[in-house]
């Protein structure tokens, strides 16, 4: 698996190298007389290194997130998915996120895509579809990390900002990190100055814009090595509020509690032998109310 990862990133870096070649060639063409062929400058070999400065920026971001008792932000997610014609279309979702460490969170996805509400009050984990009035309910794992993993494994439910929510963001990022480098600074993203870091870890290649003053992530782009189409996932994080007050009742919903129960279940084809914990049956309640979309 590791060799596959390396191959994946080598291909990513080869692409970056090719783009670099084009970038170098352009000004040379502009300044040379017409008809004088000029060999493109050699950009040198790809450097598969981990820059200490890049790790420093990632660690600072992680420490800032991990130290916050509460955090809330808005996440605008754009991801690609193949159209029936082949080339991908981009889809967007908008989520309002609230977290109270160590084990409470709420994610309200309100814009585009299927509206969903996820609540975890530390005891019960609920995924609620308000339009359909259907809810999947499970006993909450003792940690927020555990709840996110349960959603992922039992229902293929993945929050693209998972790495921001977990207890140790840097631990997730650094797990299998092979390449990390500083791209530069931007004054554009979220109207503030950000440091841009790119890194390859696990089976993903990511680019992160980190606030220069507050160390908070403002934008994350990712492609995944396991995805042969190299579809791009883009996340814009804004309206950050750390250690603010979150109302006590924010992590539960009366409407979700009264909704018709359905199970958590992965929709994808199951491998031979099934997936351990792939389906979580709904808790005891079973209402007849609503349910018709």
């Amino acid at each position: 698996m590791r060799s596959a990862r390396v191959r994946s990133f080598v291909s990513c870096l080869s692409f970056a190298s090719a783009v670099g070649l084009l970038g170098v060639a352009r000004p040379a063409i502009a300044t040379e007389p017409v008809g004088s062929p000029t060999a493109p400058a050699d950009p040198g070999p790809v450097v598969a290194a981990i820059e200490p400065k890049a790790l420093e920026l990632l660690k600072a971001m992680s420490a800032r997130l991990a130290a916050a008792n509460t955090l809330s932000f808005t996440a605008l997610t754009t991801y690609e998915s193949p159209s029936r014609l082949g080339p991908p279309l981009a889809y967007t979702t908008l989520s309002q996120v609230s977290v109270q460490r160590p084990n409470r969170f709420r994610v309200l996805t309100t814009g585009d895509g299927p509206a969903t509400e996820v609540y975890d009050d530390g005891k019960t984990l609920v995924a609620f579809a308000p339009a359909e009035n259907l809810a999947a309910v499970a006993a909450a794992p003792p940690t927020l990390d555990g709840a996110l993993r349960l959603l992922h494994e039992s229902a293929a439910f993945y929050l693209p900002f998972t790495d921001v929510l977990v207890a140790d963001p840097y631990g997730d990022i650094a797990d299998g990190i092979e390449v990390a480098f500083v791209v530069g600074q931007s004054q554009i993203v979220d109207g503030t100055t950000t440091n841009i870091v790119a890194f390859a870890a696990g089976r993903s290649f990511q680019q992160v814009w980190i606030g220069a003053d507050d160390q908070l992530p403002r934008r994350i782009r990712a492609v995944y090595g396991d995805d042969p189409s190299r579809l791009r996932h883009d996340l814009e994080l804004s309206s950050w509020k750390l250690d603010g007050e979150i109302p006590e009742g924010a992590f539960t919903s009366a409407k979700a509690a009264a909704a018709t129960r359905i199970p958590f279940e992965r929709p994808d084809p199951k491998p031979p032998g099934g997936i351990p914990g792939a389906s979580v049956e709904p808790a005891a309640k079973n209402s007849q109310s609503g349910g018709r979309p």
Partner: protein
Amino acid sequence: MRRSGFVFSGLLTLALPGAALAWSHSGAFGTASGGRGSWSASGYRGGSASGGDGSWSGSGFRGSSASGGDGSWSGTGFRGGTASGSDGSWSGTGWRGGTASGSDGSWHATGASDGTASGGGGYWHATGPYGTTAYNTTAYYGGTYSTYHPPAVVNSYYGSGCYNCGGWGTAGAAAAGGFLGARLAQARAAEAAPPQQPTYVMGGIYPSLPAGCVQSSQGAGSYYNCNGTWFSAAFGANGVYYRVVSAPAS
């Protein structure tokens, strides 16, 4: 089809020993003859085979045929399926429209209902007719959070439905298979065809229910009877989806 092939191979065994000299044989189940580097045979049901100068051909009693020579070969099944190969590559089309091809250690296939699969070098991935995708990496199931997984694209994403969007309920995401050309050609060829009513396949996944469903909560799930087709609801891939199931036990 299989029986025809059996008769054919049995006759071949008879024919080959006589390749150098002229010979013939007639039995209760067919005839065979050969000489000077060629041979021929026929079965009692009408199948026949012949060869010579490095080429060969045969036909089954139901109309299937096959031929080869100079390192290439081709065959046609009696229902219309075809297959051919040469120079280390091969391709085939099933009588219902599925296709498969391969070369140089890789392969690609498209099912009659638009699902696709491809592989090579110990790697494969597949996309079902509803847009769900699977990869043969062990990390996909229960791996780290950095693993890729199919996003929750549904046809009703923007409300009115989008027949070219892909994803669930559109019978055919097309991640693989060329850039626009083939798909546009298919679309133009199908333009004259009247729109089809959706066919709900057992086990199929849909983002929404058809009209006129009646809800029924039984056991540990919520079920819907939609004009005799039963659906169960579940929460997965970032939203609610409905799967065609057998009628729940009452």
